[in-house]
C-alpha cells in the first residue's frame, strides 16, 4: 500500500481522471473532496462491504415458496402498486 502525506487543500490524482483533495482535518476526521468520472462508483468502504455481505446472505439456498412469503403480507396485499 502506498502511503502519502498531504496537507489541507492538497490533492492526489489516481489514473488520469480521479482527483482526491483533503478539504479539512478536524478531531481525527478527514474530509475528502473527490472528482471522478460519472461512471465511477464511490462509496464508504464499510457500506460497500456490508452490501456485498447482504447480497451473499440473500442467495437462496433452500426451498422457498413465494406463496408463503405472500402470506406474511396479507394485511396490506390489496394495496400493492407498480
Amino acid at each position, binding site marked *: 500500500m502506498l502511503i502519502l502525506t498531504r496537507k489541507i487543500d492538497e490533492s492526489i490524482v489516481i489514473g488520469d481522471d480521479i482527483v482526491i483533495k483533503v478539504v479539512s482535518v478536524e478531531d481525527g476526521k478527514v474530509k475528502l473532496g473527490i472528482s471522478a468520472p460519472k461512471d*465511477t462508483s464511490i462509496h464508504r468502504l464499510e*457500506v460497500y462491504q456490508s452490501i456485498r455481505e447482504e*447480497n451473499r446472505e440473500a*442467495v*437462496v439456498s433452500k426451498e*422457498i415458496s413465494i*406463496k408463503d412469503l405472500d402470506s*406474511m403480507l396479507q394485511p396490506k396485499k390489496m*394495496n400493492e402498486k407498480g
Partner: protein
Amino acid sequence: MKIDTRHFGEIEFQEKNIICFCRGLLGFEEFKRYILIDNQDTGGVFKWLQAVDRPDLAFIVMNPYCIMPDYEFDIPDGVVEKLGIEKPEDVAVFTIVVVPEDISKMTTNLKAPVVVNSVNNKAEQVVLEDDRYSLKHPVAQSMKDAG
C-alpha cells in the same frame, strides 16, 4: 433460450427478457445476466431473480413500494447515463430480500435497490448514501405498520 436452475429445474425464456447488470451484483460481480421469474398464481410482490450463468445463484426480490409507498431516492447521474434511462416511467425498482429460517423475520435491502431500465433491461444495484433506509428493513413488520 434454456438454462438449468437449482430451484426450478430447466427453464426456458426469451433472450430479450434477460436483465443485464453491467457490473454484476456486489459480491457476485462475475455474473451479469439474470432473469426475473414471476409466479402467476402469487400476489406479484415477490419474484425470483435467477442468474442465467450459474444454476444455484438465485435471489428473492420484491417490490419495495408494497411495504413503503413513499420510498424514494435519486438515481445517480452516472447510473442514468449507463443504463440509458430517458424517462422516469421506464424505471423499475426492486429490492433484494433475505429470507431466514423464520420467514416472518425476512428483511429487504432498501439501502441498495436494483434499478432497471425496462426499455433495454439494463440494471444496476445502486448504493444509497441515505440514512433513512436500512440494509435489513423488516418486511412482515412494516406491512403491519403500514396498515
